[in-house]
């Protein structure tokens, strides 16, 4: 590669984090946008989270210690906002907006999640922010995107998930469709926004191109590999809703102490399964050759495989099946995952102290980078914790100014 225009800004000194040269302003609320900012923070970006004076609504969502709501102790908030500094700011006020724009001048990336018409009213439109900071990357994470008839529609995770067609595919034929686990779809949207944000940083730093990145949650959830519209479009066939997944070879089946998920429906995997359970003599048995035959003789197959599983704990079955490269995994709960030898060996879970919430164990590195290790550097900020450091230190306001801003309800 020849050094592109604007390369000066990215050819500085070697730092120990992948994104340590990046400054991010996180105006997002709830889960998706703050998670995008968290992903950038985890790779070393300097992220300042800007909260309304009442705090990010996720502070009011549990779990809380002993189920007692406390804005500084929400497990969800603590996770989403670790590795960030935090300030409070009412930027619906004129003074607040001036401060916001000062922070925008500091930032390389702004992430926001207001409904488009409200974003405009708050002075967060691309036109407004580009005038403040040419070359800026503005990442807007909304349910439906910046354009189109639904742009300002009300939405929650379940309603967007429903529209994406994935809810319809998640649930048994004849029964009510189900959402996924709590907030899981929003985390996917946040991950999508993080990818788009980082890509836009490349365009900004390499070519000097600032722009708005329009992330529609609906599109993020409809356009990835876990959605089925493409199957329907290519085959011209409606996609069937799933049938009950009790199966010895392609679903979940009971062990002595819980369930095992097996992926052994294909010819080769099925043969491996037979070897693993000591039934190699059945390889080639016409009752079980081909998916159609196995389906037709499912009862006989169950009579062979289910007792083998029922005689073993999940761990025993897991190790014995994997010894033959049978794809499988135990169906676990989070307390079991916490003690799992693999995750323990990889030092996955990480303890972290928080001045008010105390010491808890957090999910760790989502991936291991050999040169720029993931770090959990600081706990989620208290509401307004870094007001002095940011408004004073970064923007140069004096104590008197800060007192006045606080007294007038701007910070």
């Amino acid at each position: 590669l020849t050094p592109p225009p604007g390369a000066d800004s990215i050819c500085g000194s070697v730092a120990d984090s992948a994104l340590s040269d990046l400054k991010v302003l996180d105006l997002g609320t709830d889960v998706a946008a703050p998670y995008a900012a968290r992903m950038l923070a985890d790779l070393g970006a300097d992220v300042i989270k800007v909260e309304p004076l009442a705090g990010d609504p996720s502070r009011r969502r549990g779990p809380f210690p002993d189920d007692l709501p406390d804005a500084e102790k929400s497990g969800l908030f603590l996770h989403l906002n670790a590795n960030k500094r935090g300030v409070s700011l009412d930027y619906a006020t004129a003074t607040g907006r001036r401060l916001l724009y000062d922070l925008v001048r500091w930032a390389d990336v702004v992430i926001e999640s207001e409904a488009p018409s409200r974003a405009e009213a708050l002075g967060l439109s691309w036109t407004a922010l580009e005038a403040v900071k040419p070359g800026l990357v503005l990442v807007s994470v909304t349910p439906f995107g910046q354009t189109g008839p639904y742009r300002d529609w009300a939405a929650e995770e379940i309603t967007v998930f429903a529209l994406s067609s994935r809810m319809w595919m998640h649930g048994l034929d004849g029964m009510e469709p189900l959402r996924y686990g709590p907030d899981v779809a929003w985390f996917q949207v946040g991950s999508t926004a993080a990818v788009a944000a980082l890509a836009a940083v490349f365009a900004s730093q390499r070519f000097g191109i600032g722009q708005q990145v329009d992330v529609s949650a609906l599109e993020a959830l409809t356009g990835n590999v876990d959605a089925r519209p493409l199957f329907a479009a290519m085959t011209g066939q409606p996609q069937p809703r799933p049938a009950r997944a009790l199966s010895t070879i392609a679903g979940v089946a009971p062990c002595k102490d819980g369930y095992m998920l097996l992926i052994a429906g294909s010819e080769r995997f099925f043969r491996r399964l037979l070897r693993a359970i000591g039934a190699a003599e059945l390889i080639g048995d016409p009752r079980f050759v081909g998916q159609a035959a196995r389906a037709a003789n499912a009862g006989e197959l169950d009579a062979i495989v289910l007792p083998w599983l029922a005689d073993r704990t999940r761990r025993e079955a897991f190790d014995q099946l994997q010894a033959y490269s049978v794809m499988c995994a135990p169906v676990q709960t989070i307390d079991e995952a916490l003690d799992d030898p693999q995750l323990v060996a990889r030092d996955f879970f990480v303890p972290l102290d928080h001045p008010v919430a105390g010491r808890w164990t957090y999910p760790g590195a989502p991936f291991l980078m050999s040169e720029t290790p993931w770090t959990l550097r600081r706990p989620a900020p208290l509401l307004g914790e870094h007001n002095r450091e940011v408004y004073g230190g970064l923007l140069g306001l004096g104590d008197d100014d800060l007192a006045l801003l606080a007294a007038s309800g701007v910070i």
Partner: protein
Amino acid sequence: VTRQPLEGYKVVDMTEVWAGPMAASILGDLGAEVIRVESFPRAAATRPLAAGASGPGIVAGPPEAPRVWDRAPSYHISNRNKLAIALDAMAPKGRDILLRLIGRADVFLIGFTAGTAERMGLDYETLRQQKPDLVMLSLPGWGEKGPYKGYATYGSGLDAFAGHHHLRQYPGLDPTTAPSIFHSDATGALAIAFAAMGALHYRERSGRGQFIDLSQVEVLLNHLPGPLFDWQMNGRVQQPIGNRHPDMAPHGAYPCSEPATWLAIAVRDDAMWSALVGAIGGPAWALDPALRTLPHRLERRAEVDRHLSTWTRGLTQREAMERLQAAGVAAGAVYSPVEVMADAQLQARGFFPELPHPLLGAYRRPNVMWQMARTPSSIHRNSNTLGEHNREVLCGLLGLGDAEFADLEAAGIVGTEYRPGAEIDPT
């Protein structure tokens, strides 16, 4: 000239199934040159050799039509915006081609079970001798180290292992009621693309490449903080709650007038409740003053759900959704995969462009997952047929002569067709 964020970067994609190939597609969406190296002469899992009723066996077109392996949606869904070759990388001459491709690449994605890369001489320590600033990412199920190194699974197993399968089952029923899902492939693909770009960004500053060890379990556990903190904070193992929500009521999927149709409705706060009461015409049950506050709605949600279902049953999905949205209430139709393609919002944003395909004519597929105003992304290449770009890559990019290319073809090092019995072995 329209710039692309990752133009000029080169990626070699040697991954299979969904997470890895989709990550490479995303890098291609962003303008990187992605060269996909497909398994040959053996077919990988998403390249079926015969049509079947389920999984990768589902194909477009008549079962007996030629080139079954090019017609599986399970391949198309994770592949686009790539040049692709079908290469026998186990043969010395094929391995030489692969090493030349890696030698000119910035990013190498490898999707084998842990340990396989070493056996093939494709481990990072070996490759960095040739290419010191290479960014390499491997994505085995449970990661490159630890007691489960070498254990095999697809995304559905990782979903179970991370605790998500348990949370997804119908409340009060058992885990067989939760379908296998491949969500972790979707989030895994995003994490892979993000990690690779993070490493490239660092390389621009430092000149240094690196190796990334990615387990989708560890990605997914980052998306499930609620159960983890609830267990620590309250000693509670979270149980499946179906479509209920701890902080919202009503919240769920409500049946509509046509068979097997539902509308998802979520009422975030008391103001939205008032809006809902107005939108449904203020029936007597809804005017109960106690229901104006969330704690009472949560306590009486079964009753509220029952009444609200009576209202939704009287309307089509579309009518109910529009009535509620007109009042500012969060409501979304539970679309089937066919219905979502006709949605007005997605239509307005051009989210399902029709793309040509050499075997299948044209079909509509979901677009790139974001819109960038000044570096617009598009799907400029549909899914590749097997070996579609063999010549373009080997002769055009690596500079092989026609005779040399013909020799490789004759020796079966590259090809465009699978022979019968080319067994599937994704590990």
